[in-house]
């Protein structure tokens, strides 16, 4: 069966920067606290969770398994590899869609105080397998815009 798959691997690195008008302690709480993280981390309402866990410590795992409404099954599994309070979170993660291994990535989140707020730098280095495309990637056209609108409305409130 696997002979039908054309195997390939593509490496990619990208950096995303965000300034949040909140102190590093608050951003850190949002990233590390289970209850807080629960409120923003994940794919949102279009995704039904089957199984979920989060253990914020070096060697701890984060796991999320579920189904897009009317769509494929998606699995996220991460391991924290380095944590420096208020400054740095490093983890590795794997993504599967319908049992197909999408990617293995290394992510680094760095926090720095920036005026009254916090500068967050997210760096992801990954290898993406066999030309598989994530559901989020596929749906980016409309969903991305709607999310940006929601963010804008939230910020303008």
């Amino acid at each position, binding site marked *: 069966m696997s002979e039908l798959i054309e195997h390939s691997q593509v490496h990619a690195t990208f950096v*995303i920067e965000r300034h949040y008008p*909140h102190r590093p302690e*608050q*951003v850190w709480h949002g990233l590390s606290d289970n209850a807080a993280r629960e409120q923003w*981390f994940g794919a949102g309402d279009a995704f039904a969770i089957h199984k979920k866990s989060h253990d914020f410590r070096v060697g701890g795992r984060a796991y999320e398994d579920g189904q897009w409404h009317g769509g494929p099954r998606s699995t996220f599994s991460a391991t924290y590899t380095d944590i420096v309070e208020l400054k740095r979170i490093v983890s590795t993660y794997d993504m599967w869609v319908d049992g197909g291994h999408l990617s293995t990535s290394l992510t680094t989140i760095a926090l720095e105080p920036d005026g009254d707020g916090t500068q967050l730098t997210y760096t992801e280095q990954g290898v993406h397998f066999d030309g598989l495309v*994530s559901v989020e990637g596929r749906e980016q056209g409309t969903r991305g815009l709607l*999310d940006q609108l929601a963010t804008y409305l939230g*910020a303008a409130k």
Partner: protein
Amino acid sequence: MALPTVVEHLRVLEAAGIVSSTKVGRVRTCQLTPGAFAGPVEWLRANRLPAERQLDRLGRFLDLDTDLDTDLDTSTDTSTDNE
């Protein structure tokens, strides 16, 4: 870089559709194929987007998490004039 190395690099780029070349007499002219990077750029954008969206959601959460602001704020609260 030695000429054979350059030729080999160009051959790879040409096979990938990133450059095209024409040969007139002994001279081969290479040029960047217009739009050659559209595919890779789109791919990169699609892979980058979920992470961007998640960080936006974190920002929205932090904006709404006003109870936490108060809990963590041990100094005098000077930001109550928002409403």
